């Protein structure tokens, strides 16, 4: 394990990771300022200016209701990023708790939890999400919960393997023989060792979660109108592909840029934390859709 300073330096020397971080900040700041940049415009209906192509007034053009697509994309960014962060945080907490439980206590707990992870992995991720979202009542809460819960297994498996490799190290044995209880050992010695790999899966998984949200919303199973969502905007643009391609192009472009920069940052973090890992080494099973 390298020191914090080295990790930071390795990350900042990685040009594509920095690029990703900057792009991400731009999307994040624009999303945060959406209300100031275009107050109320995402819902403003102007049937006169319906389906107008990109112009200075409407940089991304307008939709069939004359709503400004740029403003809607910015407001959609809030939803996408918000859903992504919340869902990933749920996966993170679940994965940490269950992963540590499986790795630290071993035995039956481990066996049961890992079989549960196997069952989660047995479904292609997006398919499981589709199946769940098709039966629960759609909405933001159920979307976040579903994305969060389905993502537990990848985090838990990673945390578990990290715990297994740390558990028998000297400093943990020393703490144990000094009389530290399980809780103390977990919080003071095991948990800090899990932070860095978890950060990598958090970022990489964030991109995939945002993609999954967009895919579900595209199929009509995610964010419900009138809340703007990139996936939904793309699907409602399909009917206008011939006459107004900007309806589909711009939301998808911003989505791609966001996911791509998250992947760049995640890759950069991974390389900075462990430069010996190769492209395919980290267990991305369950992170890829």
């Amino acid at each position: 394990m390298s020191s914090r300073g080295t990790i930071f330096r390795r990350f900042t020397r990685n040009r594509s990771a920095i690029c990703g971080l900057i792009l991400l900040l731009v999307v994040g700041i624009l999303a945060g300022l959406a209300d100031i940049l275009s107050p109320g415009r995402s819902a403003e209906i102007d049937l006169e200016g319906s389906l107008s192509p990109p112009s200075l007034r409407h940089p991304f053009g307008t939709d069939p209701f004359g709503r400004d697509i740029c403003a809607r994309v910015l407001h959609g960014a809030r939803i996408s990023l918000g859903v992504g962060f919340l869902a990933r945080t749920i996966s993170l907490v679940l994965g940490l708790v269950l992963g540590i439980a499986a790795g630290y206590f071993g035995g039956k707990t481990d066996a049961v939890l890992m079989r549960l992870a196997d069952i989660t992995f047995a479904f292609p991720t997006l398919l499981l999400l589709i199946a769940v979202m098709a039966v629960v009542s759609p909405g933001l809460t159920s979307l976040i919960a579903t994305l969060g819960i389905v993502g537990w297994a990848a985090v838990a498996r990673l945390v578990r393997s990290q715990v297994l490799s740390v558990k028998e190290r000297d400093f943990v044995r020393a703490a144990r023989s000094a009389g530290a209880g399980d809780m103390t050992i977990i919080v003071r010695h095991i948990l800090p060792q899990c932070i860095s790999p978890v950060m990598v899966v958090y970022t990489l998984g964030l991109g995939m979660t945002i993609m999954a949200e967009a895919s579900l919303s595209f199929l009509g199973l995610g964010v419900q109108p009138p809340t703007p969502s990139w996936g939904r905007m793309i699907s409602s643009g399909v009917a206008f592909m011939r006459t107004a391609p900007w309806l589909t192009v711009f939301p998808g472009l911003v989505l791609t840029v966001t996911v791509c920069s998250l992947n760049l940052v995640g890759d950069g973090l991974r390389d900075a934390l462990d430069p010996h890992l190769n492209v395919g080494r980290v267990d991305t099973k369950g992170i890829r859709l």
Partner: protein
Amino acid sequence: MIRFVLRRLLLLIPVVWGVLTVTFVLMYIVPGDPVLTLAGERYDEKTLEEMRRELGLDRPLLVQYVEYLGRVARFDLGRSFMTRRPVIESIRERFPRTLILAFSAMAFAVVGGLLIGAFAAWGRIPWLGRTLMAGSLVGVSIPVFWLGLLLIYLFAIKLSLLPPSGYGGGSLRYLVLPAITLSFASLATVARVTRSGVIDSVSEDYVRTARAKGLGEIVVMSKHVLRNALIPVVTIVGTDFGSYLSGSVLTESIFGWPGLGRYIVQAILKRDFPVIQGAVLFMAIVFVLVNLLVDISYGLIDPRVRLKGGGR
């Protein structure tokens, strides 16, 4: 080797049982009475009762669960709410088409990815190699459904080279765009891994030997370098098979490809739960079996996996 395969098969049992249970529970938490969805607007209490009895919904949960397991064991996945057609029949009709799409996508990902990766590693035209690698970074992040729409816009609407959607009775022209769309993320990953694999093995002794004995660049590349870079590619394509199945849901609905993925989407729109349940269950089982095959093939390629017994 036989012990290894048997072990993997044994591990399969709890997973398949879990998949069955999850799909059963999913359909049980459907909000509202499924019979009401089935009956639509016109219903009276008596017909509802009859339908419940017919579907076995009036019996205790546990009995329903055991019966469900029994039905699945006999390959009976129920009937569609809408068409009353057995789900398994529709799957049998549609799954081959999804397989055609998935295998074309796989072939495209392997061939395209190897070529692009090897070319980028070769490094003769640096700017093109760099552009392709940057493209592969974007390729992993591009949403399948958006890419599909862009391809339709470019090749079908603007250039009128290929049909925008449909099956065309299996004609190749209809297969091209959906297959490219479905393969894209995989292709990009294969290209990246091939490139780093080739760069690693170019400095190996056996490659230097091959060069030293005067073999041509193409022979060295294909016989010595690429062969070793191929192993991680098998891994990727194997683990990506699930994303072909998932991706087929989006790709097929964009391109109007009448496979299993589109079947699921149509069922979701009509809230046809037995179809969703049956098709998802089927796809998950296929996915599990494919993963098993991939694991076993690692055992064949690499004896270390066999000894560890896990393969993870």
